[in-house]
């Protein structure tokens, strides 16, 4: 039986919905997707609930225009929520079990896992994920399968990913207004890593930077485990905002300059001495030109600063030198001209654009890296809910 799942991301720049289909054990295919620009969302925070609901309704409508693989129309009743924003945090927590019979049994492992999932969480925080890492038996660490090993105390290291409950509830409210039920909230950077990294990269050490509109999420892997994750509250919106301030333009014009003219490296592939035309934002205003060098400089300063924060964050955890497989850039910001080269310089690691290679169906997308997070959420749903189809192929309106 084919599983069908949907994933929704209410981002600062855009609202995205994608549907994935696949049989258990087979590769997942994204069968339809849609995105519309978000309005009144700043750094992932919804500032206008009505607008947010309208955005979800619009993206639902766009997605439902597609037909499923059998040619039927369908209605999307629920979706997994992709969460980003600087309110998302990841903290280490250790589960502990006393080994009963001198050798680790399945019950001891269950107890360590249960203990690891019992981190107290304040009411204003919502747990997104408990990512299990390696076991430690007495003083021996880095154990992946401790069953049958001799020792007295078994510990399981985990990374507890949690977020501001109010922000997630806001997303739920916006979706419910559009008659869409939200299922598990999932952290965007980890989802993006699921969609882009292969097992070898996770073992060798890889860092995923998910560059969103309002924030940049990161997920670092070593020895096959997620070892660090978090969010820096700076994203593509900051780049646009800097451009708008520097050149006294509207945010829309700044977005346009960022997307079509600017480079993360000053003068990359184009003459820095050129001037870039900025159309007037009303018929009464004349077009003007700005210096490409100045434009690139504004962008370079912002992105270089962001990358230096990432570098310091990784260095503080002694992780940067362990990222042997390099860095994958995902999210809408990954398409920024010259960003991969700048990241390579600033982080001293090989950098690639993180296309969601673990799913099919996104070949026609202009910037596949921007779909990495929703693709990863669909993969999560595909792997974890294969016996529980979340919706069937239904005639439109049946469940509305």
């Amino acid at each position, binding site marked *: 039986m084919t599983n069908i799942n949907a994933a929704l991301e209410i981002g600062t720049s855009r609202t995205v919905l994608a549907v994935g289909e696949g049989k258990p054990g087979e590769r997942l295919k994204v069968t339809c997707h849609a995105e519309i620009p978000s309005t009144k969302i700043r750094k992932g925070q919804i*500032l206008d609930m009505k607008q947010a609901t309208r955005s979800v309704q619009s993206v639902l409508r766009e997605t439902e225009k597609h037909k499923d693989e059998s040619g039927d129309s369908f209605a999307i009743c629920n979706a997994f929520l992709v969460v980003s924003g600087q309110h998302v945090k990841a903290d280490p927590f250790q589960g502990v079990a006393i080994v009963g019979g001198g050798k680790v049994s399945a019950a001891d492992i269950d107890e360590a896992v249960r203990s690891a999932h019992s981190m107290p969480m304040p009411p204003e925080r919502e747990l997104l994920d408990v990512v299990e890492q390696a076991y430690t038996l007495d003083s021996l660490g880095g154990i992946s399968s401790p069953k049958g090993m001799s020792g007295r105390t078994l510990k399981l290291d985990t990374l507890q990913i949690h977020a501001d409950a109010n922000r997630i509830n806001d997303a739920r409210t916006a979706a419910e207004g559009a008659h869409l039920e939200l299922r598990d909230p999932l952290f965007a950077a980890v989802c993006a890593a699921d969609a882009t990294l292969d097992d070898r990269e996770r073992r060798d050490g890889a860092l995923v930077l998910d560059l969103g509109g309002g924030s940049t999420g990161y997920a670092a892997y070593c020895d096959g485990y997620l070892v660090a994750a978090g969010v820096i509250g700076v994203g593509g*919106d900051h780049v646009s905002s800097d451009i708008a301030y520097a050149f006294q333009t509207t945010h829309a014009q700044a977005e346009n300059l960022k997307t079509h003219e600017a480079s993360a490296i000053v003068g990359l592939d184009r003459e820095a001495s050129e001037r870039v035309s900025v159309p007037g934002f009303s018929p009464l205003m004349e077009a003007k030109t700005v210096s490409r060098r100045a434009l690139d400089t504004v962008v370079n300063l912002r992105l270089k600063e962001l990358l230096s924060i990432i570098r310091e964050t990784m260095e503080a955890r002694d992780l940067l030198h362990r990222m042997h497989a390099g860095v994958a850039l995902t999210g809408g910001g990954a398409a920024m001209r010259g960003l991969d080269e700048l990241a390579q*310089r600033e982080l001293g690691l090989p950098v690639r654009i993180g296309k969601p290679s673990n799913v099919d169906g996104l070949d026609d997308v202009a910037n596949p890296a921007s779909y990495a997070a929703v693709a990863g959420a669909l993969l999560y749903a595909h792997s974890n809910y294969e016996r529980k189809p979340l919706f069937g192929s239904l005639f439109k309106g049946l469940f509305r």
Partner: protein
Amino acid sequence: MNRKSPLLLVGVGGAGAAMARGVRRAFGEPLRIVLADTDAATGRDDAPFVLLGGDRLSGRGSGGDTVQARLAAEDSAKSFDEHLEGVRLAVVVTAMGGGTGSGATYEMVRHFADAGVPSMVFATLPFSFEGEDRQRRAAGMKSMIEDVAGAAFFPPLDQLVGGCDGMEEAMRRATDTLASGVTLFWRMLEKPGYIRLDAERVRAIVASAGKARFACATASGEGRAAEVADAIARSPLLAHGSGPVRSILCGVLSGDDLRLSEISRIADGVRDAFGHAAKFELSTVNDEATFSGRLSVVTMLFESGDGVEEPAHGEATAGARPRRTRRAVNPLASGQPERGRFTNVQPTVWKGEDLDIPTFVRRSITLDI
């Protein structure tokens, strides 16, 4: 290279490197030196060299672009850390008006200050005929350098050439004048005589000395003390300050024949010329090999800092002690720093900085739009 010296000589840009080499040559003995430029060709000799922004500019120079030079210096800031080991005072020589001298100097001096090393900056200002663009560029960076440097000297090239008309000779004289002034200062600290002023005391004076002026003069024969005192008092380099003189540093350098009456004549002449309210620090150097028969005086006037002596009861002060603070916002921006569309959302703060404010504003980078 004298690795133990608490003084580091830094030459920034092509002209700054030439001046630093001139100081090294005139000093005649090893001194701690590092040259820095965006142009790889500057690092041609055996002096330690830092290529600024190698990845960014590929060693081809900044092309007169101050912003690029600043970014290049910022890229390479950490490269200076090994040169700063044990350094208590950096003496930076450069020329304003071009890209690297103007732009990189600010970032480097800022980095030195962050590393706890105050800087004395000696930077020539462009000739008046060099055009408005270079003058404006120099003036913009001058005020920023003054914000981050312990003490900053900006002698205009017009005054340094001293009436020379031949282009080559004028440039050589300007460079030599500045280099000889710095050399005298260096000698004063490295080879103190009976009245000594060590680097630590100078560091304390310089750490918050602010805007500064300097001049030097040399004479020989009978009446040499009166001659140098008059030359210092009349020097155009010391004539125009933006505020009252708060402290004076005076170095008298001579051979073994230096007399107490000569020191007294020079000290009186300098204090008479620049005010008795200012704190006065004197140092002598007795170096027969270098100054046999000659007498040189280097004088520095500082306009702020802790050097000023408290006035006597009831005596009027020349003005409140100026407070010098590092500029935190774009000089173009007025009022509060711009948070723009992030005004009503939770700020992103990193190491005390509000990252919602544009990076170029926080770094005080003036864009040539």
